């Protein structure tokens, strides 16, 4: 396997304070890496830096072996799903197609992909509905469809289930798991929920105070925490 994302010597400051410092972290093509940690651990900073929405003070992030892609080229190879679905005031299908529109994808191709992914995520029957009238779970499904239609090489998920009630979250987690294993989409999944991480991830990175303390398969991390802080966070 080759690394799709390779972070080296990364340092990010916000308001003059170092909030993220990662010596090395790589994500292999096809794997789902869950980044877990408590609030304020730097997870969201890592997410924004990976999406190139925040500039690093130092270090490199190689994507597919290069760090020379310009921001727009890079962003058009990835997709982003945030905690809030942030749908536009338009129909569900227009929302799902927005990223394709930005890329100038031909209409017929865009319609085909949108129909496929709305169906795959179980919201095809809502295609013509105004997005504002959807429930939380439906909105997040549309948000995921909007990301998958782009066939991203890297999918970034930032706490996408946090705002949902438990039954909705469990169903969506199941569906996402099956979509991810079917498509083998490389995914970085930010969460503070260890159960979600264990369910979805092939590997897990534990972040505490802006640093990665341990990376490994979830089972291995739970069985052998790298240090006392990781053990405390895992509740062991």
């Amino acid at each position, binding site marked *: 396997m080759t690394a799709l994302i390779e972070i080296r010597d990364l340092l990010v400051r916000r308001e003059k304070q170092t909030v993220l410092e990662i010596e090395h972290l790589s994500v292999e093509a096809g794997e789902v890496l869950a980044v877990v940690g408590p609030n304020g651990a730097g997870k969201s900073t890592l997410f*924004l830096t990976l*999406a190139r929405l925040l500039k690093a003070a130092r270090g490199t992030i190689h994507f597919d072996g290069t760090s020379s892609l310009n921001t727009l080229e890079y*962003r058009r190879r990835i997709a982003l799903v945030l905690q809030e679905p*942030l749908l536009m*005031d338009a129909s569900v299908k227009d929302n799902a197609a927005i990223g394709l529109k*930005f*890329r100038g994808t031909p209409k017929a191709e865009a319609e085909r992909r949108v129909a496929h992914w709305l169906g795959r995520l179980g919201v095809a029957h809502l295609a013509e509905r105004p997005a504002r009238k959807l429930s939380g779970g439906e909105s997040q499904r549309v948000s995921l469809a*909007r990301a998958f239609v782009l066939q991203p090489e890297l999918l970034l998920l930032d706490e996408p289930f946090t705002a949902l009630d438990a039954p909705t979250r469990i169903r969506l987690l199941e569906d996402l798991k099956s979509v991810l294993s079917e498509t083998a989409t490389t995914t970085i999944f930010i969460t503070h929920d260890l159960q979600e991480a264990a369910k979805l991830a092939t590997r897990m990175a534990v972040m505490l105070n802006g640093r990665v303390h341990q990376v490994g398969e979830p089972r291995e991390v739970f069985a052998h925490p790298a240090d006392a802080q990781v053990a405390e966070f895992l509740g062991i």
Partner: protein
Amino acid sequence: MSDLFPITLLSLQVSTLATLISLLVGLPLGTALALSKFPGRAFIMSLINTGMALPPVVVGLFVAMLLWRSGPLGDLKLIYTPAAIVIAQTIISAPVVTGLTAAALQQLDPRLRLQLYGLGASRIQMIFSLWREARLPLLAALMAGFGSVISEVGASMMVGGNIKGQTRVLTTAIVLETGKGEFETAIALSVFLLTITFLVNWALTAIQQRGRQ
């Protein structure tokens, strides 16, 4: 009353042109103010907000001094022309459009920008998406801009001169007829002005509400 048609037409032409120029200035400026952070931004915003309440007579005075034959732009020979009224009305409505554009965009969730970038939007695509998202308050900004100029009289009088057949608009004609005691004519002109204002706003509201889902 036979000049009602040319007076009305001039009112509409002048105020529509001033509103469109305000839109060309105010939409990008309001967007820049809403989306960027720089030192002095709050100061500029308060200037714009003050500008939204500019008394038309003060604008009239300022533009008259600029365009006066002996003034700095006197050589352009614009004083007492429709162009002078357009300039004054643009100064009145541009801050209205700018301020309300900034307010409309600031009401959107700031994370929406990140989401749009994350879906591969270029800067210009992101801005167009935000405009589309805020289309209802943006049309309200346009209506307020038009409303601020179609109804003003002070600036039109001072820089246009209320010259019959040249710079007489509905509001200045109403002032004149009232001054002469011709209340019937003044009332007829007023009804006309209100009807036009209503029709323009009705058309814009129809567009605005059609976009609502």
